[in-house]
């Protein structure tokens, strides 16, 4: 099946070639640039994507977010996995 379904807490997500997170000064906004697409992540998505560095596991991203936002880990985990799976399905993230 698709890459998106196989993304788990053990995966190490990264931005594949052709897709990157970038700050745009004119708009004062972070953006994900992808082939013929531009995504504007909301605050939650941005917090996740800024931790995607090609070497950090999803589990560690969740731990960090749970700590920083002082939120229950299960809640954060579901949000993070859902977001990353969706983006993986679109090819914006690889794992």
């Amino acid at each position, binding site marked *: 099946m698709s890459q998106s379904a196989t993304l788990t807490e053990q995966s190490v997500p990264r931005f594949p070639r052709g897709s990157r997170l970038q700050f745009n000064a004119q708009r004062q906004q972070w953006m994900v*640039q992808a082939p013929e697409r531009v995504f504007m992540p909301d605050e939650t998505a941005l917090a996740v994507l800024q931790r995607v560095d090609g070497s950090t596991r999803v589990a560690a991203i969740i731990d960090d977010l749970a700590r920083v936002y002082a939120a229950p880990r299960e809640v954060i985990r579901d949000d993070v996995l859902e977001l990353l799976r969706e983006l993986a399905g679109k090819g914006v993230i690889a794992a």
Partner: protein
Amino acid sequence: MSLMPPPLAILAELTHRCPLRCPYCSNPVELARAREELSTDEWIDLMRQAAAIGVLQVHLSGGEPTVRKDLEQIVTAAREIGIYTNLITSAVLLDQARVEALAAAGLDHVQISFQDSEPGPADRIGGYAGGHEKKRAVAAWVRAAGLPLTVNLVVHRQNLSHLGAMIEMAASMDARRIEVAHVQYYGWGLVNRAALVPTRAQVAAADDVVAEARARLEGRAVIDYVVPDYYARRPKPCMGGWARQFLTVTPAGKVLPCHAADSIPGLVFESIRERPLAEIWESSEAFRRFRGTDWMPEPCRSCDRREIDWGGCRCQAFALVGDAAATDPACGLSPHHARIAALAARESEVGEGSFLYRSFATVDEARAASGLTRDRERPEAAVPPAPG
């Protein structure tokens, strides 16, 4: 402070030169000659100006952009200032070393067009012997260089029955994005319209093929599907609205709101050789002419979709109704819609027809054939390659 939101993307037509002669080519029939093309420095300066006003992506296009020997330099410069670079190519001029050089320069993405699923018909449509096999080889080099690939499939009456095989081919080449676009009937597409318009039955069958392929390829490839205007009920939000998100720069430096805009008489387009890009975007008369909703006639003016589709395509309104300020006749609410739909249906029933190939030599022939030369300076128009 700027009143206009910044444009998202720019279509840089680096050249009109092209080894292919596709009958639906969207380039102007009157092609800019090589000596008029912007220099390397001028393109690089344009990239800087574009980044400064907030442009995020550049589509490097043509003609065939790889004709330009300075393509790597332009890519390098764009990447240095943070612009996302997308190469839109027919691929036939590329070899593996050049693909690798472009990847090393920082190219982000490559889009290759295919004319059909098999070499025979594909090379006939593209008018370039051996083109199909060459494209396949280049697609493999692109993936080997680690670059993401979009395969662009332009479909029309003569290849629609192969659409399933074309999508399969694209998926087998590891394209992450597959763009299926019905020919837009402008420019050379307009000249050759009668030979290209699909029948309603063909369009319905194509819709099914795409739906099935989307389900099958989920998670592997995304399929973007551009439906044919003639059979639509509501128009496409052409370019996300006139002069709202995109701009095109022609090989000689003229700045257009969409790359067909040149076909509309009475609009004066300014050149980056004469005025800074920021000023053209903000205040050029041609950009302001159809920006927003103030210019709209009824039924658009009071329609609740006016800020969704922005009244459709100005160039299509001009090409089909003779008035660029009319509601796009692709809209079912246009008083001209029934006539246009009937024309498409009628033309789709005539035989295979022969294509008139694009080249410098056939300009006059094309003008005559288009029958549109009387009250227009230039018979052609085009529509951008649906920027996502």
